[in-house]
């Protein structure tokens, strides 16, 4: 994209089941530390899930938490952490020139289920229905709560893109910065999905919910014994700026948005389409002006389902199966489960430090690699020190056939 402004990542704020800051998250990815635990899910009993343990009162008042949603709390925490990390003088920024773009797989299930459950205790008399139901369940809730908290008066909304949403938050922010719609963006994705039984029950009905006696072993992409998804909550928001603006204030730069693609399968409600996934990666490479061998880390979307992992590996082999001796492949869901709308944003964050330390974090829990997932370059169980990391391609795919591939390159001024 030579004629468009260059867009850079200048701050990261996150909460994951195994870390509430990028250094803690990255440290645990390199140390093989899972964040999956067992929780009690309404009507379903104990289930493996990724739970975040950040302190929302670090930034929010108790009243904000009482009125708002978990997704709002996660967003506010990540936004404040990203702003602090970016070093920007936020009070001096014109707030009408700040955009907030937050990817969500879904929003409102948690609040609706809780309210229906509470109503059942009052014999379903709707005069006991909460007056907070609508502001809590509108699709823009996480971004809206963040704008209220920060006093941001620019555009603030969510992007519904199933489990591709985290990538789309970043992609949309880059587009808005390039269009000059905003001068500073907070973007990424969040998920509160572990607080709704419907997500768990839905995956179970599909035959796609993970089960394992040890929750930390339940999410195991590419392993022969994988049996489904571990549902997780989490969030990751970035500060994105045009390079000129970042330079002007002397910001540190984590990486530069090099290319991206969003496309659609148009083939099935839930089943992936390897052909469209491969097409998505190829188009992102074309936008970046790169070939497959220019990518040094590919973070897979693989969710630990028997079929989905194989299909992504087919797409990966189609794109990276040629002469790509320096392309390494990993997966983050093996540590944190599937953080839904936060997945793409979190998984990218876990790899960004590789630009500096040249270490590729592995995918863990692979005891018996499925031959159909045995991609060349797959980094399994142990971190791998590599010669160079100049570009990362981050895959995130979602239901109704939405695919996204985002390429971030090492920043060279």
């Amino acid at each position: 994209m030579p004629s468009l402004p260059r867009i850079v990542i200048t701050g990261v704020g996150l909460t994951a089941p195994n870390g509430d800051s990028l250094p803690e998250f990255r440290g645990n990815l390199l140390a093989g530390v899972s964040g999956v635990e067992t929780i009690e899910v309404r009507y379903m009993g104990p289930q493996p899930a990724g739970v975040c343990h950040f302190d929302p009162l670090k930034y929010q008042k108790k009243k904000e938490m009482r009125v708002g949603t978990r997704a709002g709390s996660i967003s506010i925490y990540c936004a404040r952490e990203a702003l602090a990390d970016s070093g920007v003088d936020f009070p001096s920024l014109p707030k009408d020139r700040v955009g907030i773009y937050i990817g969500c797989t879904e929003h409102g299930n948690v609040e609706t289920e809780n309210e229906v459950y509470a109503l059942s205790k009052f014999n379903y008399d709707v005069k006991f229905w909460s007056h907070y139901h609508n502001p809590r369940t509108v699709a823009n809730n996480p971004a809206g709560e963040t704008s209220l908290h920060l006093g941001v008066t620019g555009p603030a909304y969510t992007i519904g893109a199933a489990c591709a949403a985290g990538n789309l938050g970043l992609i949309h922010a880059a587009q808005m910065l390039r269009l000059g719609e905003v001068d500073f963006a907070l973007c990424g994705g969040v998920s509160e999905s572990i607080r709704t039984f419907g997500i768990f029950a839905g995956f179970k009905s599909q035959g796609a919910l993970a089960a394992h006696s040890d929750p930390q072993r339940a999410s195991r992409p590419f392993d022969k014994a994988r049996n489904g998804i571990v549902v997780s909550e989490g969030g990751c928001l970035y500060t994105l700026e045009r390079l000129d603006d970042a330079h002007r204030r002397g910001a540190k730069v984590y990486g530069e948005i090099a290319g991206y693609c969003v496309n659609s399968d148009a083939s099935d409600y839930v089943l992936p389409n390897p052909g469209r996934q491969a097409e998505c990666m190829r188009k992102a490479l074309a936008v970046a002006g790169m070939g497959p061998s220019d990518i040094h880390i590919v973070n897979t979307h693989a969710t630990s389902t028997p079929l989905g992992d194989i299909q992504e590996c087919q797409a990966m082999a189609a794109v990276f199966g040629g002469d790509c001796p320096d392309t390494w492949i990993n997966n983050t869901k093996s540590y944190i489960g599937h953080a839904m709308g936060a997945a793409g944003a979190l998984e990218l964050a876990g790899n960004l430090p590789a630009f500096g330390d040249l270490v590729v974090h592995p995918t863990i829990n692979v005891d018996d690699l499925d031959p159909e997932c045995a991609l060349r370059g797959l980094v399994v169980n142990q971190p791998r020190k590599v010669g160079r990391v100049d570009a990362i391609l981050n895959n995130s795919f979602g239901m109704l056939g939405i695919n996204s591939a985002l390429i971030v390159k090492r920043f060279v001024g």
Partner: protein
Amino acid sequence: MTQDQCKAAVLAIIADIAPDEDLSDIKPDVRLRDQIDLDSMDFLDIVMELRKRHGIEVPEAEYGQLASLDSCAEYLTPKFNALAAKS
């Protein structure tokens, strides 16, 4: 129920609705909104909690009766006592 007990019941609700506020020095004759951070949704919360916890209904036209602790006690104590007499 006495008016003081009624005020204590209202304060218990407010403590949950406005958990960041210090309620130790609430003046009973001064409007609640002039002393602590309460918005229109919070007042709906007070109405809802009176309904959920005590079975008391406050018609919308009478929301103004909840302005201060004194006016709450004046308005709500007979309702509490009427309910107690029924049960």
